């Protein structure tokens, strides 16, 4: 650090996020000139090598974009292929898909709350360190995560890159008895999830309110594997119109494309957006837990997203129990015959809306693919929040400012592997 108005700060890799990226802050006098969230994640070119693959392959191939939310990729991929082929998979198979997706929400949210985010509020570098003082708490988080994974393992064969999902449904559906085996674990998880909401609601939240638009799927139920995109300003559009409504653009400092609403601007997708647009569709206990936790009709403080994630675990557990209670095994899949055409699929990954679009030729081979993951959609909003955060706290020293930025970034649970490695925070003051 040099003198007051001209200093440069370099912070090493940002931890407890999925993937690696960097951040640069440029301050001139008392004004934040520029905030850049750099994503260095090496590009893997999925959209390029998907061309020429068979229409049956996107669920297995695209799940490898992200090991944290492979079910989300499989679900959006299936929906996009099915829509291209004119097939809708709903009813009991749709319920089984939602059940599997609940497993991923439980597991991914528990991972973020307990292992990645809570250590920030309690002042530890990791959950392992936190466990020295709070062992039963960390064990509760791990147990929740395991319950979510147990659902995916039963329905998918394994928790990371499940093998049992196919276009049209599943290779094999579980027996009612197999599903009932999940119930005792889920009942315990419901208690643990409610306790999690009470625990995180009591954290001390830094003051920061943003005014971004929210974008989430909406529909009859709290959105997981289906829904219609809608924003908080009331705009609604069909999934098929996503690319007309959301513009992707490239910036020099990131290997992940940014997004904005054509008729709006930057926006946020994810738990806060889902909650703002679908609060009344939460399961009864989740709805009650949200009210008890003091969440109003929407929540605009990024740090409080940990509370919303906890509420969503409650919802996912209740929903899982509901699906299991009414389960009667359907035929494992509906036949899907390839035809030339374009198909779109959007589902709610734990981190937000995940859009896939494929073009098929008459042989059922892909001629083009487009995938828009949640974290790339959120980059512009995260940069704006960081700009406001830094602007309001310029009197802080570099170390304090840096840790505030890192905490803010973590509260979005960014998945940089998804978005396109290494969050390297750099503050340049001149």
């Amino acid at each position, binding site marked *: 650090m040099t003198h007051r108005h001209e200093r440069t700060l370099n912070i090493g890799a940002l931890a*407890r996020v999925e993937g690696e990226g960097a951040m640069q802050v440029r301050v001139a006098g008392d004004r934040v000139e520029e905030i850049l969230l750099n994503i260095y994640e090496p*590009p*893997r*070119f999925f959209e390029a090598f998907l061309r020429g693959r068979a229409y049956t392959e996107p669920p297995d191939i695209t799940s*490898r974009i992200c*090991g944290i939310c492979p079910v989300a990729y499989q679900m959006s991929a299936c929906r996009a292929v099915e829509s291209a082929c004119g097939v809708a998979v709903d009813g009991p198979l749709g319920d089984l898909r939602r059940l599997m997706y609940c497993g991923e929400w439980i597991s991914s949210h528990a991972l973020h709350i307990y292992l990645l985010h809570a250590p920030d509020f309690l002042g530890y570098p990791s959950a*392992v360190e936190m466990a020295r003082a709070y062992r039963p708490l960390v064990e509760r988080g*791990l147990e929740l995560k395991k319950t979510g994974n147990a659902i995916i393992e039963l329905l998918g064969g394994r928790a990371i*890159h499940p093998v049992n999902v196919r276009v049209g449904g599943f290779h*094999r559906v579980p027996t009612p008895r197999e599903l009932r085996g999940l119930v005792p674990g889920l009942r315990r998880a419901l208690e643990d999830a409610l306790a999690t909401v009470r625990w995180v609601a009591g954290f001390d939240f830094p003051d920061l309110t943003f005014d971004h638009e929210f974008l989430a799927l909406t529909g009859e139920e709290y959105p997981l594997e289906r829904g219609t995109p809608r924003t908080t300003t009331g705009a609604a559009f069909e999934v098929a119109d996503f690319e007309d409504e959301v513009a992707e653009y490239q910036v020099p400092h990131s290997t992940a494309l940014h997004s904005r609403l054509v008729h709006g601007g930057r926006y946020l997708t994810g738990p806060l957006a889902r909650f703002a647009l679908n609060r009344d569709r939460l399961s009864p206990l989740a709805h009650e837990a949200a009210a008890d936790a003091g969440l109003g009709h929407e929540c605009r403080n990024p740090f409080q997203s940990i509370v919303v994630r906890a509420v969503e675990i409650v919802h996912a557990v209740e929903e899982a129990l509901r699906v299991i209670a009414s389960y009667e095994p359907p035929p494992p899949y509906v036949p899907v015959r390839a035809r030339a055409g374009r198909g779109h699929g959007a589902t709610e990954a734990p981190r937000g809306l995940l859009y896939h679009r494929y073009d098929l030729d008459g042989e059922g081979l892909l001629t083009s693919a487009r995938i828009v993951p949640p974290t790339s959609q959120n980059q512009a909003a995260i940069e704006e929040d960081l700009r406001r955060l830094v602007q309001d706290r310029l009197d802080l020293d570099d170390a304090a400012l840096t840790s505030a930025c890192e905490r803010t970034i973590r509260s979005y649970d960014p998945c940089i592997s998804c978005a396109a490695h290494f969050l390297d925070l750099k503050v340049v003051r001149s």
Partner: protein
Amino acid sequence: MAPKLAVWKFASCDGCQLTLLDCEDELLTLAGEVEIAHFLEASSAVTEGPYDVSLVEGSISTPADAERIKEVRRISRRLVTIGACATAGGIQALRNFADVEEYRSVVYARPEYVATLAESTPISAHVPVDFELRGCPIDRGQLLEVLSAYLAGRRPGIPNHPVCFECKMRGNVCVMVAHGTPCLGPVTHTGCGAICPAYGRGCYGCFGPSARPNTGSLKTWLGDIGLARPEMDRMFATFNVTAFTEVPDDPPA
């Protein structure tokens, strides 16, 4: 002093390192036996190297990463690669068989902003590797075996026979014989527990080739059950495309 464990990421999906956090029952015990000295996904505290065991996920696909892996090797006593990206280049190695410039222009409007190499290569193409753990993703049980072996100072006991073998032990019905479903189980490295056949689908080779795979004879069989050549080629061209491409079609001697 507790041995130091480090986890590193290159081009990957994070799924293999997540396998460590998915050891819910063993994680806190493990954390008592080793010092998790560098694991960015899980901790913001970093202890400097050298490290006793480094787990490396991901493939080398950028000029910067080709340099970084040398530094990781320099500060690691044992270096274990985890997963198909690190052991074979991963699905992103499909670019090795295509024109990467064209790929870059399909995904990015301004390709010049994006640094990338023409090929995605396994870690072993750049530095010596002590052990390669297969899978896309790796298996949790196999990961724990490798960690406990190195902690005890012995060689990991990981078999390299084909999935087919595991499938028989599990008592699965053979999906090829019974249903004519194409399956790579006869030539794929064991480790997953033969999950796909247990769910009624064919193995798609996510653990890469087994020891001495007889791919020539499997290809004849696949042709006999009606699989056309382009489909067959696609079956081998996924998460371990480079490893399967190197296997000769002649029967092993």
